[in-house]
């Protein structure tokens, strides 16, 4: 029997970015890039494990907004168009680099990579990547969990408890719609917890959630096993804490594996390096240079003089890092098991997009880790749900309010650049909540208007917008999205209040912000 367990948790999320009103919208590329570089490579990794019958237990949180985008026909079609252009660019690159031994094999690598992505997306899964995740869940390789409906930062929305409830319950319902069963786990957006949130999760039927290390270390009463065993909240929902050591090894670009000099460099891209006219057809209509996804250099070191990428050497490093990761965890559980009365569990949560997009070799590394774990008797890969089933006796304690990220509290999402949003988020939620309570059973038109108003409110609540404002990243877009959704919500409220719903406009909004098709405003009652 294994001396301890390892729970690898990937949180996959993107805000809902779908702009049918524009033929080519820059921010939709976030989604295209994540599909090409993260989601499909992860599925490819799972396919290999499934084919080779490697025992594997991996937890993947798919946010409801991401599920909505993966299932959206327009975005699928646009993604294919994007991928076809990427293939075209890679083919041109393969021809251009012939005769250049160093770069030609990298160009070939990208070409083969994009062909493979296209085959997986189009031929193997007929564009339905949600079905792919569902299949691997049914095969027992992964446990898919959910996250708040639009990744709302729940502690800062809790002034109106109904707003939090809607984020949780809409997520639970969307999960059931996509996976035909209830989710066991809930990824709190930004790992943002405050006491009491667990009661909302319990109400919606969830068994567990995650907090950052200090959420457990500062829990009350003090947990005797630290982060190496879950604790039970008063509501009966379990909280798992992040292991700091394994997190740093993977997260950190400087101290961690992704910063290895042999790994591919994220920032050097032919979108910037090559002749403008040559890459112009692959840039946005505005013509600004952007990343294309074809990057030919390795990190090399703290220098601007980057050397060509060497896929074989990178693979060797990924293998070494996978071995190091597993061996270090074995050492950890060895020590922990001597001091605990139950087998320790090491919880390693990561943003899924770290793998492949940021850290090119990440999916390869992850696959190697899972294969090595399968052959390691001392350490077993589990999901948190597996752990709770095997070890249902937990210490009762309340986690401390906390988040992951900078400083470990709410400041990233509540600071000078973004604090203005909260009065509008709260006022909109209060107004819509009061209005919904006035219409416990509305006629069809009012029902549609109130449900769309709730969609808009949820979209405005996404923590991504506050994050972008705080990090000075695509601020204009984040401000625009916040304002647009709240204005739409408020305008719909006014129309319902006045009994004058503009049906044409309502239909237009339903077409534009079309996520959560089964959403019913009565979740706010």
């Amino acid at each position, binding site marked *: 029997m294994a001396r301890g367990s390892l729970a690898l948790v990937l949180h996959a999320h993107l805000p809902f970015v779908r702009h*049918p009103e524009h033929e080519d919208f820059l921010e939709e590329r976030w989604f295209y890039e994540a599909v090409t570089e993260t989601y499909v490579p992860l599925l490819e990794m799972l396919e290999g494990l499934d084919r080779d019958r490697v025992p594997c237990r991996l937890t993947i949180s798919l946010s409801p907004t991401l599920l909505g985008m993966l299932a959206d026909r327009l975005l699928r079609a646009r993604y294919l168009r994007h991928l076809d252009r990427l293939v075209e660019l890679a083919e041109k690159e393969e021809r251009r680099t012939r005769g250049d031994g160093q770069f030609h094999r990298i160009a070939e690598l990208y070409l083969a990579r994009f062909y493979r992505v296209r085959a997986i997306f189009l031929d193997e899964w007929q564009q339905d990547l949600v079905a792919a995740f569902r299949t691997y869940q049914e095969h027992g390789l992964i446990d898919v969990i959910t996250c708040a409906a639009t990744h709302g930062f729940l502690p800062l929305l809790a002034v109106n408890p109904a707003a939090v409830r809607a984020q949780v319950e809409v997520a639970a319902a969307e999960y059931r719609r996509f996976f035909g069963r209830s989710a066991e786990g809930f990824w709190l957006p930004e790992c943002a917890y405050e006491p009491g949130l667990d009661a909302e999760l319990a109400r919606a039927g969830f068994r567990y959630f995650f907090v950052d290390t200090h959420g457990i270390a500062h829990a009350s009463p003090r947990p005797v096993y630290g982060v190496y065993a879950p604790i039970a909240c008063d509501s009966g929902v379990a909280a798992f804490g992040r292991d700091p050591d394994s997190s740093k090894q993977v997260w950190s670009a400087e101290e961690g594996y992704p910063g290895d000099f042999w790994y591919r460099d994220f920032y050097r891209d032919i979108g910037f390096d090559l002749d403008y006219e040559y890459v112009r057809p692959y840039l946005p209509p505005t013509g*600004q240079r*952007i*990343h294309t996804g074809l990057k030919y250099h390795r990190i090399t070191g703290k220098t601007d003089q980057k050397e060509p990428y060497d896929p074989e050497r990178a693979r060797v490093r990924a293998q070494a890092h996978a071995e190091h990761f597993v061996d270090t965890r074995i050492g950890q559980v060895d020590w922990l098991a001597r001091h*605990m*009365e139950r087998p320790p569990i090491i919880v390693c949560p990561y943003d899924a997009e770290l793998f492949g997009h940021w850290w090119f070799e990440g999916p390869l590394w992850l696959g190697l880790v899972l294969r090595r774990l399968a052959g390691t008797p001392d350490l077993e890969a589990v999901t948190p749900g597996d752990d709770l089933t095997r070890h249902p006796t937990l210490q*009762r304690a309340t986690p401390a309010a906390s988040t992951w990220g900078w400083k470990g509290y709410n400041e990233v999402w509540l600071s000078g650049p973004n604090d*203005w949003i909260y*009065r509008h988020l709260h006022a909109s939620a209060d107004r819509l909540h009061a209005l919904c309570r006035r219409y416990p059973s509305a006629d069809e038109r009012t029902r549609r208007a109130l449900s769309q108003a709730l969609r808009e409110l949820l979209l405005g609540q996404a923590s991504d917008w506050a994050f972008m404002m705080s990090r000075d990243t695509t601020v204009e877009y984040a401000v625009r999205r916040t304002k647009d959704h709240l204005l739409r919500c408020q305008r719909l409220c006014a129309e319902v209040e006045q009994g004058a719903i503009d049906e044409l406009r309502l239909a237009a909004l339903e077409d534009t912000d079309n996520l959560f098709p089964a959403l019913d405003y009565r979740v706010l009652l």
Partner: protein
Amino acid sequence: MIGRAVGAGWNLVGEWLGSACGLVTRIREHTDPLVRVLGLGPGRSHSPTPPVSQPPSPRPEEQAREAKYYLGTERLAVPAPSPRATVPVTLVDREPGDLPRAYGRDRLVLLVRDPWWLFAYWELTPTSRIETLRNLGAEAEGAVEVLRVYDVTFIDFTGDNAWTSIDIEPTPGAESWYINVWKPAASYCAEIGVRTRAGGFVPIMRSNTVTTSRPQPSPDTTVRWVVLRPRGLTVEGGESWDGARVEHPGRSDGHSPAPPGSSDLHAPRPPAR
């Protein structure tokens, strides 16, 4: 038609605000200094946000997270592309206008930023301000608007039973403030009100209550075990925990040695045997 109706609605609100402001102006003519300290001066401005520090360098999470949104662009310096020529009429682009400056409702909200800082925002309608001034009568002279923050840890706050409180005099016209609270792991509530020269305090509105986090391990070392039941049945023991429960006395011994390469902050401590 709807647009006209909405417009008419806003006109009504505008007229109401206009008449309220007119009343304010009339009062100002007589009580100008007082009105200034009560924040009724021209324009509304956000408070300075003194304690907001910008992250000097991102933690790994932020760095990787930012990469999700990184396309190699210069922060959308280039405007978004124009709508396509063939845009169906059923699609919606940007919303015209801006979010309201005010919602016409008194409100004071506290949010927790971290164990040492709170954020307060408020809206105080002209009507409430004026009513308060009227009720103060002669005492309005020299009175100041204050944000009073109470420590209500473990207290069901009734207005006069807080452990302690501090008064903040926001900049006239301010609608939000960062508050450096005096201790973490405590509960706070706030009121906006008027403090008279004689030291009396007339509250106008009260906030929600918030509790800050504990930034260190809990002093409570009680150990209580519970058994989680299978899905849907919550837990065992007591009211909602109707089953196996093992109580351990609190422990006062030190931590176990830390595992290799780990801080002892999150290392396990063996339970009492």
